[in-house]
C-alpha cells in the first residue's frame, strides 16, 4: 500500500510489549496489510520466550490437518473444494447451480408431484386412443380435457394441502400473489406446449384446431386464481374445472344417437370454435385477470382450511 514500513525499534518495542497503545494500534493496522512487516514481527517474537509456545501451537496446528477431529470431513471438504474449483473453471459457477435448483424447487410442488405424470398421461392417452383404438373423437376429447389440466396444476401448486412447507413459504416476503403467479407460470409452461403438441399430432376430423383450448385454458386458470381469493384455491379450482367438465363432457357422453365422437366434436366446436367463442374466452381472461389484481392481497394471508 504505502512505502512506509515499521522501523526496527518499533518492531522491538511492540514485540516486548512496551509500545504505547496509540503506536501499537497503528502498527497492528499496518501488519494486517503488510506481510513483510508481519513476518519481521513474527520472527522477532519467535526469538523471545514466546517462541516455545509458538512452536508448540505450530505443531498442533500443522498436525491438525490430516489427523485431528474430522479426517473424513476434511477429506470430504477437500473433494468438495476440488469439485468446486473444477466446476468454477469448467462450468457455470456453483452459486448459479444451487440458485437454479432452489428456483426449481420453489417453483413447483405440482411439477414435482403427481401432476406432471397426469399431464403426460392425458397427452399419451389421447395419442393411444387416436392411433391405438382408432377413436375419431380423440382430438375433441383432448381439447375438452386440456383446459382442466393447468387448473389442476394450479390447485396442486399452492396452499396448505399442496405444499408441505406452506406455512414456511407463506411467511417469506416473496410469498403471496407473486409466488402463486410464479408457480402458475411454471404449470402453464409445462402444460401448454405438451398438450398443444399432442393435439397437433392427432388426426383431425373437422372441429376446432389443436391450439383452440389455449385461451379457455388461460381463462379458466385465471378464473381459478381470482375465485381462489374468496374460496381458497382448492375449492376454486374444483368449481372452475368441474364446471367446465360438466358443461362440455356431460352432454357429449350421453348423446341421443350414440355417436360419442361426433357429439364431442360438436360440443368442443360450440365452446371453442370460431372467432366469437375465442373472443369471449379472451374477454373472460381479461376480466378474471382484473379481478385477480383486485383480490391479489388475499394470497398474502395464510390459508385457513
Amino acid at each position, binding site marked *: 500500500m504505502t512505502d512506509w514500513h515499521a522501523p526496527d525499534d518499533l518492531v522491538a518495542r511492540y514485540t516486548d*510489549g512496551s509500545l*504505547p*497503545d496509540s503506536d501499537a494500534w497503528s502498527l497492528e493496522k499496518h501488519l494486517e496489510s503488510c506481510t513483510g512487516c*508481519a513476518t519481521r514481527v513474527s520472527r522477532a517474537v519467535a526469538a523471545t520466550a*514466546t517462541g516455545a*509456545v509458538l512452536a508448540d501451537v505450530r505443531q498442533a496446528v500443522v498436525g491438525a490437518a490430516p489427523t485431528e477431529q474430522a479426517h473424513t470431513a476434511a477429506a470430504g471438504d*477437500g473433494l468438495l473444494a476440488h469439485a468446486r474449483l473444477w466446476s468454477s473453471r469448467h462450468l457455470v459457477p456453483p452459486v448459479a447451480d444451487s440458485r437454479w435448483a432452489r428456483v426449481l424447487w420453489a417453483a413447483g410442488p405440482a411439477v414435482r408431484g403427481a401432476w406432471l405424470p397426469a399431464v403426460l398421461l392425458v397427452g399419451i392417452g389421447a395419442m393411444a386412443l387416436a392411433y391405438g383404438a382408432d377413436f375419431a373423437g380423440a382430438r375433441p376429447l383432448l381439447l375438452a380435457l386440456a383446459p382442466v389440466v393447468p387448473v389442476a396444476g394450479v390447485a396442486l401448486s399452492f396452499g396448505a394441502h399442496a405444499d408441505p412447507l406452506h406455512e414456511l413459504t407463506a411467511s417469506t416476503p416473496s410469498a403471496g400473489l407473486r409466488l402463486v403467479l410464479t408457480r402458475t407460470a411454471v404449470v402453464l409452461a409445462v402444460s401448454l406446449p405438451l398438450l398443444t403438441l399432442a393435439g397437433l399430432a392427432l388426426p383431425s376430423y373437422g372441429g376446432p384446431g389443436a391450439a383452440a383450448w389455449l385461451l379457455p385454458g388461460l381463462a379458466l386458470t385465471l378464473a381459478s386464481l381470482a375465485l381462489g381469493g374468496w374460496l381458497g384455491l382448492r375449492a376454486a379450482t374444483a368449481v372452475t374445472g368441474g364446471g367446465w367438465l360438466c358443461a362440455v363432457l356431460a352432454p357429449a357422453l350421453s348423446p341421443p344417437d350414440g355417436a360419442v365422437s361426433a357429439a364431442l366434436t360438436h360440443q368442443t366446436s360450440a365452446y371453442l370454435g370460431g372467432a366469437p367463442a375465442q373472443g369471449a374466452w379472451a374477454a373472460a381472461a381479461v376480466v378474471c385477470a382484473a379481478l385477480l389484481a383486485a383480490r391479489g392481497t388475499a394470497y398474502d394471508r395464510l390459508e385457513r382450511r
Partner: protein
Amino acid sequence: MGGHREKDESDAALLRAVAAGDSAAMAALYDRHAGWLHVRLTRRCADPEVVREVLQDTFVTVWRSAEAHRGEEAGGWLWTIAARRMVDARRAQERAARLETTPIDETRTGYEPAAAMPSAEERVLAGLEYGDVGTALDRISPELREVLRATVVDGLTTRETARLLGIPEGTVKSRAMRARTELRAALAQLTPSPLGGPA
C-alpha cells in the same frame, strides 16, 4: 518440518494450498503470522493460556475456511478470525465463571488491558515523542480506550465488543460516544487552532 517455502510466495497462494490440505503451506503461513497475532492477542488478553488457545483455534479454523478466503489482505483476514475466536473464548470463560458463581466483577478483571500497558512516564514520553493523537489517546480513560480499540482498531461489532469486555451493549455505545467527545476535547487542547480537530 518442510516449512521452508519460497519467500516470495504470496499469502493468497499459501491459503489456496492450505485449502487443498498442504501442511507445508500452513507451516509457512503460521511462521509469517502467528508471532504478531500472539503479541496482538496478548495485548488484549492477560491470560497466556487463553491466548495460546485462541491462537491455535484461529489456525485450526484456517484449515477449514482457507477455501473461503477471497483475496483480501491475509493479515486482516487472520485477525478477523482471531478476534472472533477471542470473543468466543471470552464468552466461554464467562459462562464457566457464572457456573462457579463468581461475582461478575471478578470475571471482568480477567480482562486486563493494564497488564500490557506501559508505565505512566513512558506514556507521557511517548505522547511527546509521537505527537498529538497519541497524547490525546493517553488522556482518555482506559475504559474508553478499550472500547475504542475493540471497535475501531479490531473491527468488532458493538455486540462482540460487549461480550469481549463483559459490559452491556448500551454501555459500549455510550462509551464509544464519550471516547469520541473526549478525544476531540483533548485534541482541541493540544492544538489551539480551531481546524486542528480530529479527522
